[in-house]
């Protein structure tokens, strides 16, 4: 693909089990993610892909298992901690701040990096002002990168779906994350939008070296852009490896085609 070098394991999930009441969403799932790679999680509807992402991001707390992120062992994640530690995410059903402009939405991604206190902010003086301008500059770079200059001031609620997805990605990028979790970044898009999104994901990975974990339905797309793929079915892991391995895995084929091969 490019000059990026896949590094050591940055995120390691061990024996994760998650259930809601009596319903088992994930059963004993282990896999790892290496630095700078594009790692995909695929599987049929209800396989537990989104649950997996929510575990990494700290929205769900698994009953069993261990999460090792950058060498630190944890029982589970906490959303705020995940954000602080450099894990950003986008959402399957776009969770943007609809009443706010594109620019303001993306600026919220800088929130954690803002240091000036409330009092200085309120007076809009000294360091607070300088800081805001610096963050604004960074955000403008991201806006350029994702080619959304023309909608900068538009309230997000008015944008078409494809562009909203892009703003969602922009907000996550504004956090300058180490690991970026993408929940079905291409769902509901037309072919052209999908191609754009693929290009952006690869560019992010390539230019910023961001590690990417993505969930996707579209097998073709996944196989094209991922380094390694995990396959889930009914909350269990049924495959793990490079795209070609996964494609040849009989269990994966039957899960997708619904027949024993």
């Amino acid at each position, binding site marked *: 693909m490019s000059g990026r070098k896949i590094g050591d394991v940055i995120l390691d999930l061990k024996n994760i089990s998650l259930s809601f009441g009596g319903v088992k969403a994930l059963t004993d799932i282990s896999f790892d993610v290496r630095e700078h790679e594009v790692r995909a999680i695929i599987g049929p509807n209800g396989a537990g892909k989104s649950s997996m992402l929510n575990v990494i991001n700290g929205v769900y707390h698994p009953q069993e298992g261990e999460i090792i992120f950058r060498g630190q062992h944890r029982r589970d994640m906490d*959303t705020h901690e995940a954000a602080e530690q450099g894990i950003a995410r986008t*959402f399957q059903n776009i*969770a943007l*701040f609809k*009443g706010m402009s594109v620019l303001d939405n993306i600026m*919220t991604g800088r929130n954690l990096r803002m240091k000036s206190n*409330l009092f200085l*902010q309120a007076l809009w003086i000294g360091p607070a002002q300088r800081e805001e301008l610096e963050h604004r500059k960074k955000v403008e770079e991201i806006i350029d990168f994702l080619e959304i200059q023309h909608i900068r001031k538009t309230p997000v609620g008015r944008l078409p779906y494809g562009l909203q997805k892009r703003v969602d990605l922009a907000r*996550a990028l504004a956090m300058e994350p180490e690991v970026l979790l993408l929940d079905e970044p291409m769902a509901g898009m037309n072919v052209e939008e999908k191609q754009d999104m693929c290009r952006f994901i690869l560019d992010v990975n390539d230019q910023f070296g961001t590690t990417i974990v993505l969930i996707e339905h579209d097998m073709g797309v996944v196989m094209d852009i991922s380094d390694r793929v995990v396959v889930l079915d009914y909350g269990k892991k049924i495959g793990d490896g490079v795209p070609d391995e996964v494609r040849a895995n009989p269990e994966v084929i039957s899960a997708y085609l619904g027949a024993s091969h």
Partner: protein
Amino acid sequence: MSFFIETLLGGLMTGMLYALVALGFVLIYKASGVFNFAQGAMVLFAALAMARFSEWIPGWLGIESLFLANLIAIVLTVVVMFVVAWLVERLALRHLVNQNEATLLMATLGITYVLDGVGQTIFGSDIYKIDVGMPKDPVIMLESMFEGGVLINKEDFIAAAIAAILVAALTLFFQKTPTGRALRAVADDHQAALSVGIPLDRIWVIVWCVAGITALVAGIIWGSKLGVQFSLSTVALRALPVVILGGLTSVPGAIIGGLIIGVGEKLSEVYLGHYVGGGIEIWFAYMLALVFLLFRPQGLFGEKIIDRV
């Protein structure tokens, strides 16, 4: 003519005070998506604290000066409102993240009763007065333009000015500062706000604290006009139609809504009252709100509710 202007000005000033209470609703709704039923109770609580502190402080500290005593009382009350905000977050809201709006509304109903009860237990349930030294004497203005001039109450005038300054400051805070942006973000989507690392708990304390301070300002102004007593908490009911008119999410809406209702009820009382036997002032605001609910439910300035099918 001068009578008309007097009525108009009187309406505008009452309207400004409605706006002040309405602002408390809007702030909390904007920042947390919670319709805070407890705003009225907060006004009463703040006013009670203020009235009693200013009464007690000369005794506690041996201060003679009324100004100094009031100043200390205000600072103390702000601290108390901060503690209230912190407790509300800690004991109620924290456990209700991501619950639906009705649940949160019920929680604020509960907070109303707790605040009413606790407030009157600590500070007493008599009628108290707040005297921050606002001039009570009426003045006559614009004598050169109208015969006899226009009679206005200095106190109302100052109160309206204070309210206007507060409103302007809050608008800037919401629109221009990173914290304001974070507050708006939380209002739109809890989950997404968490994912970018906005600390929900801190944001909620800040917003309840700011709402507490607007409640204090409203409490001081209403309290020094009418005395501090339980009925003060029903001032909030007068602010409900204002919020509906102006839109739950709009700070300017709260102000303009307040002014329209203030002026509307005064003018209609004076000029239409005798056709229906008077008493319009009491229900005018609610009728107007009802009309708005029928034709423009998001209010004058509220964010349009757009649903994708």
